[in-house]
């Protein structure tokens, strides 16, 4: 049978500009460019091109450009090109379609339908360049009240505070495992986190020895595969996160194919080289809320109650009662990952069809925790599709304490979102373990860019606060009065807890 798959992209090369230096062949990990030395002819495998744009930017004469393929199936509104290609792929392989990065279906973004307020006349806006502006955020359990011992002029704290993380900006780097991304990517984020005074997550792949100097700014993860989980690992990090689910693939597990388990990954994950690293869908010691509680306290016992324990879940239909249960189960923070969250590998069907938008999830979890009078028991960390400082501000105004950024951080490191992370062939040296490809990311430069992104967003957050007439981020938290909805229906406004613009 003829394989009638039109390619997604075509590679155009300006023959006059091309100097036959072969650089494009070396740069492309997907094998798009081929040169027949005998016939002295170029062949470009358009069907293999993923539009990562590496070759185009590395070509010394700028001879290459990548374009969307003009060849498509006959247009049809229901049987789109993608639908037809997926069916053909599955007919050929009988397999689940794998993909990466976030949800690609055109669901509406609530962030883009929410607008922030600004001061005019009745209250003064603040100039953050000249006046104090605070972004510091503490993540963790807070007491109901504080008991103070006062004696003459001295005052002493009697309440013992639960362990908290101190963030200088309410933005952290999301958990992406060493294995799914390179050690250079991890190092870039770890250095940036330490420099800016925030944290990065290890993901479930453990902490590479090169990260140990930054361990006080690293959150370790305990996922269903329990890779690298070890009492020293738990004690080394600043906090522990139990990963129940992720927004890109709620309800399913994952696995790192054996071919990616290199010597170093094997050492970090504490599994044999070359063996599959399978993360079961659930934790097999957690089948109910009480079992989650058991694991939370097992981790607290093992770390002698010195580390905050977070629990990460995908934003699903019943997210509010689940998050309340998690906080009641003893978690110091609940991490909610929305349905636009990225991933290194996920079945397309899960990535695109499960879960709910993060905006709705934040609003309903914050509301429910307040209704039950336990909002102070734990913090809310939001993640999944946070693209800018405006998204951060809106997430906080909806009720989050802080956010995690994943895809945005990778883009800062050079990622072009070509969605091929799971192939391990990342042309920009990020989602790969190939020693040659990894050289493309310099951790010094990566750290500089990642830190710059945090600084730029933090600065914008201060400007946003200034415009709102606030000088501290906690005055924005759950301050939904400073948001208005544009083009949202009544029930949507009700869920988000915001008024329509003009009201």
């Amino acid at each position, binding site marked *: 049978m003829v394989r009638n798959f039109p390619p997604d992209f075509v590679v155009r090369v300006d023959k006059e500009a091309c100097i036959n230096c072969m650089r494009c062949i070396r740069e492309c990990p997907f094998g798009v460019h081929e040169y027949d030395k005998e016939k002295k002819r170029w062949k470009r495998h358009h069907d*293999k091109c993923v539009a990562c744009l590496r070759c185009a930017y590395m070509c010394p004469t700028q001879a290459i450009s990548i374009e969307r393929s003009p060849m498509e199936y006959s247009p049809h509104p229901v049987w789109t090109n993608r639908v037809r290609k997926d069916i053909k792929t*599955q007919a050929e392989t009988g397999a*689940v379609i794998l993909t990466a990065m976030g949800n690609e279906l055109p669901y509406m973004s609530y962030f883009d339908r929410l607008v922030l307020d600004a001061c005019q006349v009745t209250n003064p806006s603040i100039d953050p360049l000249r006046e104090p502006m605070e972004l510091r955020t503490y993540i963790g359990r807070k007491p109901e009240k504080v008991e103070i011992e006062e004696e003459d002029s001295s005052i002493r704290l009697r309440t013992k505070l639960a362990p908290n993380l101190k963030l200088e900006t309410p933005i952290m780097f999301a958990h992406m495992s060493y294995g799914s991304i390179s050690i250079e990517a991890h190092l870039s984020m770890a250095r940036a986190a330490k420099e800016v005074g925030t944290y990065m997550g290890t993901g479930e792949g453990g902490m590479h020895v090169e990260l140990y100097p930054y361990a006080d700014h690293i959150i370790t993860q305990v996922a269903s595969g329990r890779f690298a989980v070890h009492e020293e690992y738990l004690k080394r990090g600043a906090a522990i996160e139990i990963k129940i689910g992720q927004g890109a693939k709620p309800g399913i597990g994952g696995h790192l194919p054996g071919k990616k388990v290199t010597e170093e990954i094997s050492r970090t994950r504490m599994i044999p080289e070359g063996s599959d690293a*399978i993360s079961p869908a659930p934790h097999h010691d957690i089948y109910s809320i009480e079992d989650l509680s058991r694991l939370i306290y097992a981790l607290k016992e093992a770390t002698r109650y010195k580390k905050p324990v977070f629990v990460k879940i995908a934003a699903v239909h019943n997210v509010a009662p689940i998050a309340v249960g998690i906080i009641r189960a003893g978690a110091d923070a609940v991490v909610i990952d929305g349905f636009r969250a990225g991933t290194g590998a996920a079945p397309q069907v899960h990535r695109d069809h499960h879960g709910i938008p993060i905006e709705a999830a934040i609003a309903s979890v914050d509301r429910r925790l307040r209704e039950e009078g336990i909002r102070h028991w734990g913090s809310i960390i939001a993640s999944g599709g946070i693209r800018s400082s405006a998204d951060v501000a809106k997430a906080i105004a909806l009720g989050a304490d802080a956010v995690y950024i994943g895809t945005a951080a990778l883009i800062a490191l050079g990622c072009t979102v070509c969605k091929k992370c799971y192939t391990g062939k990342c042309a920009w040296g990020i989602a790969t373990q190939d020693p040659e490809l990894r050289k493309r990311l310099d951790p010094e430069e990566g750290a500089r860019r990642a830190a710059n992104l945090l600084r730029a967003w933090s600065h914008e957050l201060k400007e946003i606060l200034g415009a709102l007439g606030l000088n501290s981020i906690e005055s924005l938290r759950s301050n939904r009065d400073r948001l208005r909805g544009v083009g949202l229906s009544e029930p949507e406004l009700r869920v988000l807890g915001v008024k329509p613009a003009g009201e």
Partner: protein
Amino acid sequence: MEIPLRKARVSREDEFVVIDAKGVHYRELNELINELVERGERKLRLLNVNGQRYIADGLRCSDCYIEIHGVAGDDLAAFANGPTIVVYGDVQDGAGNTMNAGRIIVHGNGTDIIGHSMRGGEIFVRGHVGYRVGIHMKEYREQVPVLVVGGTAGDFLGEYMAGGRIVILGLERLETYPEIAGEWLATGIHGGAIYLRDEVDEDKLGYGAKTERLSHSDRRFLSEAVGKFCSCFSLNAEEVLNAEFTKVVPKSHRPFAEMYSDSKEG
């Protein structure tokens, strides 16, 4: 009606520190254990334990010896790194969860997920164990965890197993289910091996598992592991070993290799 919880009574008997755990909350009991170990005590005897959780969790101490009299609660020795624990009684769910090193010797029965994700050390259970025992057991370099059960095991034994060795001896059987191990045996296994002292019906095997003949090195391993087990419980190792064993191993180290497709790569 309130059950009064009280402070543990501590005394000394030869080189043992003896703790009466009756009515003591786990948090207090474990704080006490950790404190004693930090002070240099190496031999502890816990009396009247009944359901207290997390005993010896995350304990890094390779020469600690802890005796437990009674029922050890959930997650006994989770994340533990080295201690030897002897339980004169039963253990509840999750004993040896994600254990890195150490020994747990149980004179009674165990329930579900014993040895979950364990990476090193040994667990010996004299009686029966429940569901999903040894699930996602791993191994790493010289660390090869070993779990030996004198009785039978429930369904999903060695599910997702990635390494290590499980031995089920089936010395005693249950009336309601006389088989040596339950359904979906070793489902998703991609490393390690399970030895069963009986025949195993092929259709009991889970996804990705197969049976294999025992080699000389398997025999050597069995005589060592069963020998150790038998010496813990005063059993005759020779008699126990004098039987047919079935070995269950992965069909492949990549059980799910065919499951995914890239729409690009076709």
